[in-house]
């Protein structure tokens, strides 16, 4: 019985990781860069939603929308200012820039909102029947899992069916050829950042609704975990991010429950190492030989 409770909390945590991991994996798949500032965009999303809810008194749905819009703009601006000029530079330069952006966002948040943690007001306002609550299912967990599934399906459909999705896949396969075919590569990459950042806002709101401490470093640990999830599932693959996130959340939760709360993080990363030793491209990653 209590096993289900742990499983549910694992799935709920895993869903948040999955949504964040989608952002990582999309950007990696198309721009071939690790956007380490992604976790901090989540934090910004959380703060914007908090302000919209508490200071502006907006209803929950509007607050989430505001957070998504602000994060989308933020994502595009970051991409344009920090990453675009480095398009031709080595991948290490972009990686370092991403870490720099991450620090910038954290410190800017500390300046604007202060370092004192805030208690995030959940955006989920209904409560579940007592029977569901007694097995450890909270309304936040339910919404998180549902949101994750909806986002996952919507994103897959978008990438596979829409014209822009086709452009994204083309860019991901071969940027040069895509450009020759008349695809605006820069705009496609910006678009990817926009979608990833909007997802980050949703992830931030859901993360803070379930785990309500909001501070400038809120996004860093979930960001790293979600990055792990993306690698775990095979970076660049959308279903991979989903499965990786879920598995990671469940492993973390069960490790906490049955092995050790202190060692839970170590166990998560140990599993990652083992998976990568056995399957270097992750669970659903494609093996792409480098042509010399």
């Amino acid at each position, binding site marked *: *019985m*209590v096993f289900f*409770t*742990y499983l549910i*909390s694992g799935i*709920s*945590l895993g869903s948040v990781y999955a949504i964040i991991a989608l952002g990582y994996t999309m950007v990696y798949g198309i721009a071939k860069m690790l956007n380490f500032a992604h976790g901090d965009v989540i934090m910004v999303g959380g703060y914007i939603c*908090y302000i919209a809810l*508490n200071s502006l008194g907006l209803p929950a749905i509007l607050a989430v929308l505001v957070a998504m819009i602000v994060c989308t703009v933020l994502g595009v601006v970051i991409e344009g200012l920090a990453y675009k000029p480095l398009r031709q530079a080595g991948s290490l330069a972009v990686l370092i820039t991403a870490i720099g952006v991450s620090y910038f966002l954290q410190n800017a948040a*500390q300046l604007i909102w*202060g*370092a*004192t*943690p*805030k*208690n*995030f*007001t*959940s955006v989920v306002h209904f409560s579940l029947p*007592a029977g569901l*609550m*007694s097995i*450890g*299912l*909270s*309304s*936040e*967990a339910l919404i998180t899992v549902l949101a994750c599934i909806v986002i996952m399906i919507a994103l897959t459909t978008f990438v596979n069916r829409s014209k822009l999705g086709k452009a994204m896949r083309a860019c991901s396969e071969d940027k040069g050829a895509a450009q020759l075919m008349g695809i605006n590569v820069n705009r496609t990459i910006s678009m990817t950042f926009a979608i990833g950042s909007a997802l980050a806002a949703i992830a931030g709101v859901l993360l803070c609704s*379930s*785990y*309500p*401490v*909001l*501070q400038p470093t*809120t996004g860093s*640990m979930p960001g790293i975990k979600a990055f792990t999830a993306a690698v775990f599932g095979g970076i660049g693959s959308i279903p991979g991010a989903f499965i990786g996130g879920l598995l990671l959340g469940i492993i973390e*939760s069960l490790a*906490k*429950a049955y092995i*050790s*709360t*202190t060692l*839970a*993080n170590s166990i998560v990363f140990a599993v990652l190492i083992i998976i990568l030793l056995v399957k270097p491209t992750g669970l659903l990653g494609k093996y792409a030989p480098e042509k010399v």
Partner: protein
Amino acid sequence: MKNTKKIISFIVVMTMILALCSVSAFAAEGETFKIGGIGPLTGGAAIYGNAAMNGAQIAVDEINALGGVQFEFNAQDDTGVAETSVNAYNSLKDWGVQAIIGTVTTAPCISVSAEAYSDRIFMLTPSASSTDVIADKDNMYQVCFTDPNQGIASADYMAENYPDAQIAIIYKNDDAYSQGIRDTFASEAESKGLTVVYEGTFTEDTQTDFSVQVAAAQAAGADMVFLPIYYTPASVILTQANAIGYEPTFFGVDGMDGILSVEGFDASLAEGVMLLTPFSADAEDERTQNFVAAYNDLYGETPNQFAADGYDAMYILYAALQEAGCTPDMSAQDICEALVGVMPTISVDGLTGQGMTWSATGEVSKAPMAVVIKDGVYVLPEAAE
């Protein structure tokens, strides 16, 4: 003898140089004690640091208004981090500090007190409660009671009032404060025959999600959850327990103090939470009332226990300086030796306890009291029923 002469001549020369440099600065230095404060004014523990330093500042204003000895108070931010705290300590030393109120949190205090011990600067912490803070340091004193004291008092209180409680403990096992209280609580609970049904831990990196620990406590049938932790993780535990409809009695220690002032926290979740604290802002005595009014005027909020600890710390220092006959022109080292001599002999009435006394090891003796949160304020458990 030879050395004494050298030192005296050196002091005379230094005095002359100082007098030459700035006559007015020298005069000011001779009349006021330079008291330093160290605590987290920003960061996760900022509520404690600001409260303690604000409380101390109120005491300084009151003492200065009395005429007589004047205090100059310089509060430095250490963000609750040991390394930063030592930096704060060093900048206070450069400033010419003569005694220190601080540091507010435990881990930084252990680092800074070691420095202050070798430099011979007297320290009085309002709230760093580990025994490691005062261990083997004769110049380090505490205003708050120690962790073992809190663990034992919590277990005793439960044994007396809830002997049949099924107890769960959730504590932070990479934190000296939390681990220390849990250890003494567990051994005292065992000797008092209390039942501990679950123990969950967490660390700095995992203090945002307690769904597993809360679910496990619920599954173990705990109706009393002991939280020897700070209020930020405690607020998450309360929120997550509420989300799955788990309603035990939560029992905290002094780190729980401050939970009502977390921005955005739904205070109704803290209804019925019990905590051990030596200070209650709605106490009826005149001195507490005046302090609460002054604090409200200056900082726009009701003072918590840490504010009272800071306030008391300054008055204890004041009493000890007078008892020892210290004057502002003495060096920090001389003041330190003089204070170390008198601390075990004085008794101070403060907001956090009547007739507080100290052992030579630096530990305070005063009685903790349990309060329960009702309608967003602390009341005595009898009044809540």
